């Protein structure tokens, strides 16, 4: 069964990659003219996609700390898988936001002219630190397995051999040392992941001009959402690619992850309820206007059907009633992880899709001077392409690197 799904995912990723190429072409030739975001809704699908992927990354990473920092025995074998998932999602996030810039070639200015009064200014440094940490941590987590696989014949063996960078000591002392280093790195990673993902939340939370974002709960919701969606993605990944598929151990592992995800999802829904109910009850127009768009607006189905039904109710039922079944947990994980894009869209867009001053909607019209936003073909295709690219990166990495191997360092 999981083999079949794996093949299906290869197929989807390849098709997405090929079809999405047209979006890349459009982005490179027409620039932002082919996009539907603009002046009044300045951020669209790509920004939502960016916080979606960065959340998946932060969530998957924090799950890995359960292995390397908190040393939870049962999760031991999926540490590398969690780290690798985090790395691939980080790549997708950064690529999306990079191409969202009006001047992508000026991105270096973020580094050389950082304004540390801007939360966005902080982000570039936090991401860089996180990226380095992820790569180093993944390397230490894989080192012993790289050594083992370097004796294999063919390309894979050569690659593994190269990636050991000559450090081939697999004595128990050396492995022990790796394990301690991993613990230190993971420990640094926890505040870092909280800082960068809480930071993305704060990036929105501090904007006083947008009452819908401007809440102390925003960064917290980002973090909990990251844990829920990243954890769910990991549950799906483990169900399909996890170690020892078909064994009782694998089943136990997936079921355990499922329970963690269930708890996180419920907590996330609680925060959402708090945010929505308080705002709606106090009925201050500037904020309720955005909420009304979410709940009753033209895209009401994104909230009710995609998020609440497919992303919450169905997975909750699956996890509650079929929590011991690998396919049910895998399906629940996939549903939560996929539909979380709707949560991210419903954070970014409703705040922007309302008039800041009455009469703006009709005062002057032109491309981008509209409050009705739906992603353009280019935006969809480019988004699909990026996600497919990340998916292919994962599949190829999984095939070549010893990500799920017998030797586990923890």
């Amino acid at each position, binding site marked *: 069964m999981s083999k079949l799904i794996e093949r299906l995912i290869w197929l989807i990723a390849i098709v997405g990659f090929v079809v999405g190429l047209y979006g890349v072409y459009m982005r490179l030739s027409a620039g932002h003219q082919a996009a539907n975001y*603009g002046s009044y809704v300045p951020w669209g699908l790509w920004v939502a996609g960016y916080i979606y992927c960065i959340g998946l990354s932060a969530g998957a990473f924090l799950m890995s700390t359960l292995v390397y920092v908190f040393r939870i025995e049962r999760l031991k074998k999926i540490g590398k898988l969690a780290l690798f998932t985090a790395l691939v999602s980080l790549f997708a996030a950064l690529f999306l936001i990079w191409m969202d810039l009006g001047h992508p070639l000026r991105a270096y200015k973020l580094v050389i*002219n950082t304004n540390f009064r*801007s939360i*966005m200014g902080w982000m570039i440094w936090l991401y860089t630190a996180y990226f380095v940490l992820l790569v180093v941590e993944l390397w230490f987590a894989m080192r012993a397995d790289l050594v083992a696989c370097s004796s294999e014949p063919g390309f894979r063996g050569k690659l593994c051999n190269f990636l050991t960078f000559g450090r081939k000591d697999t004595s128990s002392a050396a492995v022990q040392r790796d394990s301690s280093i991993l613990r230190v790195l993971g420990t640094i990673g926890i505040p870092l992941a909280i800082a960068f993902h809480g930071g993305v939340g704060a990036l929105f939370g501090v904007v006083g001009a947008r009452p819908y974002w401007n809440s102390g709960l925003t960064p917290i919701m980002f973090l909990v959402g990251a844990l829920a969606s990243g954890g769910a993605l990991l549950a799906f990944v483990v169900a399909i690619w996890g170690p020892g598929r078909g064994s009782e151990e694998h089943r136990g592992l997936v079921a355990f992850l499922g329970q963690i995800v269930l708890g996180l999802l419920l907590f996330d829904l609680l925060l959402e309820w708090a945010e929505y109910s308080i705002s709606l009850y106090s009925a201050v127009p500037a904020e309720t206007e955005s909420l009304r768009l979410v709940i009753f607006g033209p895209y009401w189905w994104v909230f009710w059907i995609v998020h609440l039904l497919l992303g919450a109710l169905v997975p909750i039922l699956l996890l509650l009633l079929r929590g011991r079944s690998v396919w049910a947990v895998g399906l629940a994980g996939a549903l939560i992880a996929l539909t979380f894009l709707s949560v991210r869209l419903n954070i970014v867009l409703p705040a922007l899709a309302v008039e800041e001053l*009455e009469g*703006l909607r009709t005062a002057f019209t032109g*491309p981008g001077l509209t409050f009705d936003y739906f992603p353009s073909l280019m935006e969809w295709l480019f988004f699909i392409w990026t996600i497919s690219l990340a998916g292919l990166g994962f599949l190829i990495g999984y095939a070549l690197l010893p990500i799920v191997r017998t030797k586990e360092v923890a």
Partner: protein
Amino acid sequence: MPELLEQQNVFEQMQEDIKRALQKPVEERRWVMVIDLRKCVGCSACTISCVAENKLPPGVVYRPVLEHEIGTFPNVTRRFMPRPCMQCENPPCVPVCPVSATWKRPDGIVAIDYEQCIGCRYCVTACPYSARTFDTGHTYTEGTPEQMVYELLTNFEYGQGWDREDEGSPIGNVRKCHFCLHRLEEGELPACVTTCMGVANYFGDANDPDSLVAKLISQPNVIRLKEEMGTDPKVYYLV
């Protein structure tokens, strides 16, 4: 006839006010705009003169005129409200910029360095007045049999020549009203102020007690938009 004279006097006085202000060091100037909503007829000439002055492409607008309908038929009336950038004393658009591409000048005008801006649009979200728009490089005559060359002419914002032909800045940047800084520095009034046929716009240095604007904003019938945001706008409306 006497009214016309009076109008001319207004322009002359504002012109004099600017000249006096330019004699002072830049940090002692405090440029403000006053818009008399009782006089605005909603012709949008200011919007268009701004588009012409700054060669604004489709999708970019510095000064739309908002219309508000008051009452219900048949007892209705309309109010018009031009909305330039407020040149906030505490501009929320400034601290959010990750690369310090936008800042408040000593004379209070909030400027953008087109060469520095990376086009992230964070400032657009942070402005409470939607005063910032994103230039994606459209032209009005694209897709017609002939792309008009006048649309690609150089504009002179911030006293520098910006060429549209090479697809470089300000394409890909965020743009906003700057009180026609390039004209001001030459002693000229902003384009919108000179164009207004109802003489509903006043401009000058509020730090100069003898200036026309200083007198206007000391009246009781003055409002500013969204003052509760703490932005301290430098655009005043007479109501």
